């Protein structure tokens, strides 16, 4: 590890807001797009099963 302690890691040599900001935004977008895609999928499935239920009754 290139840090002596967690406090040193959290400080990031004085660049903490920039480094953690960049990583945070990247992880948010990366996870966000996966979650959004999954939600779109399940929404479509729900709509389809409703359509099926409507035609059967």
């Amino acid at each position: 590890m290139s840090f002596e302690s967690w406090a040193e890691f959290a400080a990031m040599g004085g660049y903490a807001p920039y480094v953690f900001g960049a990583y945070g935004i990247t992880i948010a977008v990366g996870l966000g797009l996966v979650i959004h895609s999954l939600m779109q999928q399940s929404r479509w499935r729900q709509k389809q099963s409703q359509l099926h239920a409507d035609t059967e009754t």
Partner: protein
Amino acid sequence: MVWRWFHEWGSPRFFYARSGRLIPIFAALTLCLLSIGLVWGLLYAPADYQQGHSYRIMYVHVPAAILAQSSYAMMAMAAVVSLIWRLKIADAAMQTAAPIGAWVTALALVTGALWGKPMWGTYWVWDARLTSTLILLFLFAGVLAIRQASGPGQSAGRAAAVLAVVGLINLPIIKFSVDWWFTLHQPSSFSITEKPAMPIEMWAPLLVMVIGTYSWFFLVWLMRLRLEIVRREAKADWVQRSFQDEL
């Protein structure tokens, strides 16, 4: 042989049936590579002798910037196939690549700004590299907007496909902008022909991040493309049947 392959994978039904198996593979690959790469880059890679720890932004910025450009190239390739061979699936591939590419380009710009502030003293300069990357974002947004405004069907996607192909001219401009014009931006981190300027302890985690980011892109692209296919083919028998199987 190649033509048969092309025909099979160009069929929405065949593509949907076969591509489903790739999802868990890309999901596992993405999870492994990105978690290794993030921890390695953030905790274990040595500090830079000039930039200190701020250079760790590279591990998210460079993969985003590389993917921004190659996802545009992939989207434009799909556009070419859609224009020449009128494949429905190519049009859907172009349409679903556009929003992902736009997000990745935005990410490259934002992480670059967060790196620029401590190193150059400014979030933004209107130089060739940054401006041409901003144009890339507008191109993605333009292709997406035109595609969504033109309605369903492969032929409706042709205006957006033409824009995507014309926009390819921007890629070499981004690539060579750091050589052609004076810029604050540093030259490429990776090159196929030359050895990296960094020691292996620094570029190995970067390579893991780049491959992981590509895998993430294919995962999200595939998920969206598969949904777009069943949306467009919703009335087809095979969609109804595969849907009932899943219930």
